[in-house]
């Protein structure tokens, strides 16, 4: 999941449990403490119409939501943290928690009977665990543990578990317990044993939170356009589905030739399981076999792809050149990992950029596209496929370990809404077909074995312009080299303009590409909130670069390129736009950026 540190200026917390659990009192206590600490706060208590609704049912759930921080005008749409004192509390609030939000649940109440009453099936629970930061806390039993030395009856003990939950929340946000302790002293003035008991439980909750190092999980920025149907998806599955969707849209059979390699293997596994969609997967004897079977399949009229990671991409280099010179559609997915050589197979890095751009013999231009979130792996795999099919070229799609294994909610699309993909299949109306005749985009037509009257030969030797016969003519080689180059450059017309987020008159432009989107966005957003004039351009289209790239670069006094390598994209920009100065922030630890480090570095650059 693309996670970010919760914004402590703006938090929504909700307590929920059975009507008798003291939810409203607990919520009020948190509200008071927050207000006393000088925060703005808005609250929204919601409880069942029945005074004593059936215990443990969804209908019987009582809730109290509060939103605190700066510039608070509403109780908040969805909560960052849900304290659920029973399974029904989760079911009742499943749609009012932010993606990736934290749920602190009293796991002691998760009995078979309670789960059944709430309708919380193992499948739903699994989904909750996938999509949220579920902290399973033994709240009931630990409350009892706190009060084991007292003479209080069981019912009274259990009733105080709301204080345990409140203690957790206080610790979570670093709030003091004293305001609630003072309240308890007043409320139970005449029952000192209850004052002590509740204080012990409150303290117990705080200690527990401290012991388990409970931290609020992170939420993703999906403020707009939230409505819709969702499912959880990983980067690798999203990539596989993007390829399959493109094949369906283009009405072409799909073929994947591949060889298992971490962290790309799930793409092959997913496709292998999609025989229901007619997809053919071929687990080759090696990486070269993976791509070359795909090239054969592309020649035979399938939409073909191959999936790999850095070491495998190195092995595929020669074959990518074959796809370049034969001008066949092919998508090569490189799920990057730490290198060189075997490197860090399970860790993330963005260090295959140069290999993707130019790791081949000869003048061998290949479009390079990078996904930037687990779920948009779908979109960029689809787009890479569309470009490959419509421009008759191999296309390299870069993801990485962080995206591939990360999961996040994906708003389900409908195939009817996906962009049309038009294969360059030779038209029956064409009077004369020659394999290297080109259209206005320098794209040749695709005639596949089985089509009568279009029999022709292609191959790795240089081809004569138009006719496609083998040619060693010097001027022809130069012309064909230019044509292949121009063909790829023309793709710029089919990719969207680069967008910039952040402050309009920013001093500093932060540039990133690929999987670092979430972290850079968070860092930039936080810097802007701190009053810094920062903007962020995040590149998905690497080659060709969007048409307006230079228009963006020239607007800013300072440019800093942040990437998980030693500066490959920065150097690529230097090569393309040498008139600008590029500062760098790099990390090669096999880990994603940390937001704090990014902020610090950007701050230094702003000041320096």
């Amino acid at each position, binding site marked *: 999941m693309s996670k970010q540190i919760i914004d402590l200026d703006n938090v929504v917390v909700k307590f929920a449990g059975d009507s008798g659990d003291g939810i409203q009192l607990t919520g009020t206590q948190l509200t008071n403490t927050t207000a006393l600490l000088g925060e703005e706060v808005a609250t929204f208590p919601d409880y069942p119409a029945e005074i004593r609704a059936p215990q443990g049912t969804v209908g019987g759930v009582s809730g109290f939501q509060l939103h605190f921080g700066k510039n608070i005008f509403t109780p908040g749409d969805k909560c960052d943290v849900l304290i659920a004192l029973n399974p029904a509390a989760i079911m009742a609030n499943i749609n009012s928690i932010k993606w990736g939000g934290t749920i602190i649940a009293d796991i002691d109440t998760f009995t078979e009977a309670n789960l059944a009453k709430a309708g919380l099936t193992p499948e739903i629970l699994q989904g909750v665990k996938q999509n949220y930061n579920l902290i399973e806390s033994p709240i009931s039993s630990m409350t009892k543990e706190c009060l084991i030395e007292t003479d209080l009856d069981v019912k009274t003990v259990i009733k105080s578990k709301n204080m345990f939950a409140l203690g957790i929340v206080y610790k979570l946000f670093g709030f003091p317990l004293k305001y609630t302790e003072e309240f308890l002293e007043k409320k139970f003035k005449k029952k000192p044993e209850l004052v002590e008991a509740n204080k012990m439980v409150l303290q117990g909750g705080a200690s527990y939170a401290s012991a388990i190092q409970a931290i609020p999980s992170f939420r993703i920025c999906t403020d707009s356009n939230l409505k819709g149907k969702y*499912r959880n998806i990983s980067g690798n599955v999203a990539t596989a589905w993007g390829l*399959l969707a493109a094949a369906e849209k283009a009405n072409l059979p799909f073929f994947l030739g591949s060889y298992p390699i971490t962290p790309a293997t799930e793409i092959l596994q997913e496709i292998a399981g999609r025989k*229901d969609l*007619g997809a053919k997967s071929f687990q080759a*004897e090696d990486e070269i076999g993976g791509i070359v079977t795909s090239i054969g*399949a592309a*020649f035979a009229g399938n939409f073909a792809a191959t999936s790999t990671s850095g070491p495998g991409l190195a092995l595929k280099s020669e074959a990518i050149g074959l796809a370049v010179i034969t001008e066949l559609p092919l998508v090569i997915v490189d799920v990057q990992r730490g290198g060189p050589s075997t490197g860090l197979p399970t860790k993330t890095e963005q260090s295959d950029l140069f290999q993707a751009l130019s790791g081949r013999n000869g003048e061998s231009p290949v479009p390079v596209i990078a996904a930037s979130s687990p779920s948009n792996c779908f979109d960029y795999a689809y787009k890479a496929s569309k470009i490959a099919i419509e421009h008759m070229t191999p296309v390299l799609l870069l993801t990485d370990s962080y995206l591939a294994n990360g999961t996040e909610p994906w708003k389900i699309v409908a195939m009817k809404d996906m962009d049309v993909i038009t294969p360059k299949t030779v038209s029956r109306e064409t009077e004369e077909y020659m394999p290297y005749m080109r259209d206005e985009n320098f794209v040749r037509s695709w005639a*596949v074995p089985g089509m009568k009257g279009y029999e022709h*030969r292609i*191959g790795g030797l240089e081809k004569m312009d138009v006719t496609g016969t083998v040619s060693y003519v010097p001027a022809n080689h130069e012309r064909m080299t230019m044509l292949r180059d121009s063909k790829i450059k023309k793709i710029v017309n089919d990719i969207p303009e680069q967008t910039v987020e952040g402050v309009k008159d920013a001093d500093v432009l932060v540039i990133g590409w690929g999987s670092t989107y979430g972290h850079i966005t968070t860092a930039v957003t936080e810097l802007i909130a701190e009053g810094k004039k920062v903007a962020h351009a995040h590149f998905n289209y690497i080659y060709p670069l969007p048409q307006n790239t230079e228009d963006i670069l020239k607007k800013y006094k300072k440019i800093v390129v942040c990437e998980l390598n030693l500066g490959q994209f920065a150097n690529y920009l230097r090569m393309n736009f040498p008139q600008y100065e590029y500062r760098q922030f790099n990390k090669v630890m096999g880990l994603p950026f940390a937001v704090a480090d990014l902020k610090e570095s950007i701050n230094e650059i702003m000041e320096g």
Partner: protein
Amino acid sequence: MAENKYTAKDFKSGQEVRWCPGCGDFSVLAAVQKAFSELNHEKEDYAVISGIGCSSRFPYYMNNYGFHGIHGRAAVLASGVKVANPKLSVWQITGDGDALAIGGNHFIHEVRRNVDVNVLLFNNQIYGLTKGQYSPTSKFGQVTKTSPYGTIETPFNPGQLTIGAGGKFFARTIDVNVKESVEIFKFADGHKGTSIIEILQNCVIFNNGAHSKITDKEERENNQLWVEHGKPMIFGKEKNKGIVLDGYKLKVVTIGENGITEKDLLVHDMTEEDPTIHNALVNMKLPDFPVVFGVIRAIPDKSYDQMIVEQIESVQANSPVKCMDDLFNSGSTWVVE
């Protein structure tokens, strides 16, 4: 379909053939063109796929769909074509270097998978296109540009390699034996699975006469055993030599000597799954034995491309997922109002 819809000429491309004068490849090209014209495929359904080497220029000289690949990758290129469209008649052109050195890994796996591809393995025991280095089939001790003091490598026997990899089909022919080659090619086309056809081919420039002991006009009848399914293994100028099984080994005998009659000879069974005799046959070497030719092994079995189609059909019949929209909405989903 009417017989001989095409003539060999229909499969000749206009491209100038650039093999050396006298190259064995010319005869093979003629044999393939003749075989194609006699088979029952539409011209557009042939795909000729090659790797790198002299023989791999082959597709350019044919007038059907063709793909000249990269070094060593003919097997995977051809496999991709066939799996992507099993209706095609796919022919792989490869040499001893392309198939057994740089492409050796692909070769054994292609054979193991039994993809329905007809593989013409041009074996001239030398690297021709790079001008005379030893290959994985060069004879032990052979002097070449990269083995000036003689090779110290044991050569591969393609037949043994094929059978060892679990191959279901192996045949052997000679470049100049066009008539026999045409029949073998046609038979291989009908065999569903990987058909390995080793063609002893003469490189006139860098390894002239590599097979001359076998092909020599005077001696060839004594040095070649052409096997036919269901027929006794007889050879020799006088048609009086034969092969018998003597204990665990093959043995050359003379009919009429020591009480040997035709009935004592081994009768060829290309469909026997036990590879023992087939392996012994492909290993026969001069001067103690003749060299075996013809279809040595042909075991009917399911091909990879056929099985993948069957698997797809079976999964599709039972899966509720019929299209991408079904897939997107399958499993665990939720709605945000």
